[in-house]
């Protein structure tokens, strides 16, 4: 009797063909994106999305064409942070036109697809028991659609804001046609550094180039004397040495960053010449040195 491997094809469904066709569409779509970079963290609450939003804006201020894909399917916030909340994604002949934020930044996020602000990300499912079994699969397929069906056009940088958790990057990496680099965001605390180390190790295992670590909330400026002060007890520890990675930059804690995120205005646009602005612009200068998209007439 024949075994599974003796039979070629799958009887007519051509599942592998469907998967290959999707992969080909994604490769084609991403061909006009010069750099696809993921922004990751170990723990939640380190300000990864705020860093993504401001790095995107800083790159755009340097004249780069930037797109942001919010890969945090269950906790989307990029539309709010980049001021495109309420914009509708439009269906065109070639796919879905992303929302357009300040400086022409293109944004795709699950919160642009939800009917209401407070709507949770829930899926119609006739089989409610044990949704954890299929929920991961549907989220992965949704992310693939974001990559494949969005009309990104020519981009110098597509920043992919990952959900928190060191296991997220390996999961997403297998969906991507390519990943040109990773940026890790942490804060100067031992616990945060412990978890971001795992994300960095995952990037190394996947042979993804780690562009460096952004240390967020890296001290604060005293309101009275203007001198930098530590915000965390472990601060002063050489973060780069602990993480065995180069530090791209250190962003001082500035309450206006969070306020700007809430208001949908990138901090780097609203508060120029501040210390945090300089830190973001310096990181953008390092990241912006990567290759630029071809054929865009610049």
């Amino acid at each position, binding site marked *: 009797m024949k075994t599974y491997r003796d039979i070629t094809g799958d009887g007519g469904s*051509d599942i592998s063909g*469907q998967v290959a066709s999707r992969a080909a569409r994604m490769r084609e779509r991403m061909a006009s994106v010069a750099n696809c970079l993921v922004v990751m963290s170990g723990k939640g609450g380190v300000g990864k999305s705020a860093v993504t939003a401001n790095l995107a804006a800083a790159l755009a201020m340097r004249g780069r064409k930037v797109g942001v894909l919010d890969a945090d399917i269950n906790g989307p916030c990029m539309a709010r942070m980049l001021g495109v909340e309420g914009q509708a994604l439009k269906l065109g002949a070639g796919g879905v036109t992303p929302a357009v934020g300040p400086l022409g930044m293109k944004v795709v996020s699950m919160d642009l697809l939800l009917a209401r602000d407070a709507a949770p990300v829930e899926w119609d499912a006739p089989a409610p028991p044990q949704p954890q079994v*299929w929920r991961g699969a549907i989220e992965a*397929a949704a992310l693939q*659609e974001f990559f494949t069906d969005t009309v990104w056009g020519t981009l110098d940088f597509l920043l992919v804001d990952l959900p928190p958790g060191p296991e997220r990057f390996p999961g997403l990496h297998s969906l991507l046609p390519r990943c040109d680099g990773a940026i890790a965001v942490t804060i100067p605390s031992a616990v945060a550094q412990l978890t971001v180390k795992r994300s960095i190790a995952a990037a190394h295992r996947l042979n993804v180039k780690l562009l460096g670590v952004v240390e967020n909330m890296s001290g604060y400026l005293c309101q009275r004397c203007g001198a930098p002060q530590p915000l965390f007890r472990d601060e002063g520890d050489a973060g780069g040495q602990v993480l065995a990675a180069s530090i791209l930059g250190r962003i001082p804690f500035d309450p206006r960053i969070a306020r700007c995120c809430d208001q949908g205005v990138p901090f780097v646009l609203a508060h120029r010449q501040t210390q945090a602005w300089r830190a973001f612009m310096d990181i953008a200068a390092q990241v912006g040195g990567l290759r630029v998209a071809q054929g865009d007439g610049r």
Partner: protein
Amino acid sequence: MKFLCVTCDEAMKFVEAADAARGDAFSAVFRCPRCAHRIALLANPWETQLVRSLGVAVGGRTTPHAPFELVRERLADSRLMWTEEAERRLARVPEFVRPMVRDGVERHARERGYREVTGEVMDEVRYSMGM
């Protein structure tokens, strides 16, 4: 998953899927190309959901992939998407009544189970209002 006709030692071929897109339990019919014996695959709701979550169609695709197809079909509380043409037509409506028109068109579309707002949907609304 593959099916083998044990009598003929022949791989069975997909014939049809019943209610492939809807319903909570998927079924598909396979046939032996040699002896024409037919069998049905009956998936439970859990298996059905897992296959649907992968974004692939058992039995092969009968329609081309639509943008954000899976997200728009499966997201429980999703916003209706508008085509560029429909948005252009909406933009011609005076700004002060535009939100009201958008709500009305979306209500019309949702009541009829449409997944997107197209120029044709806007025509329907126009005719239904006697315009």
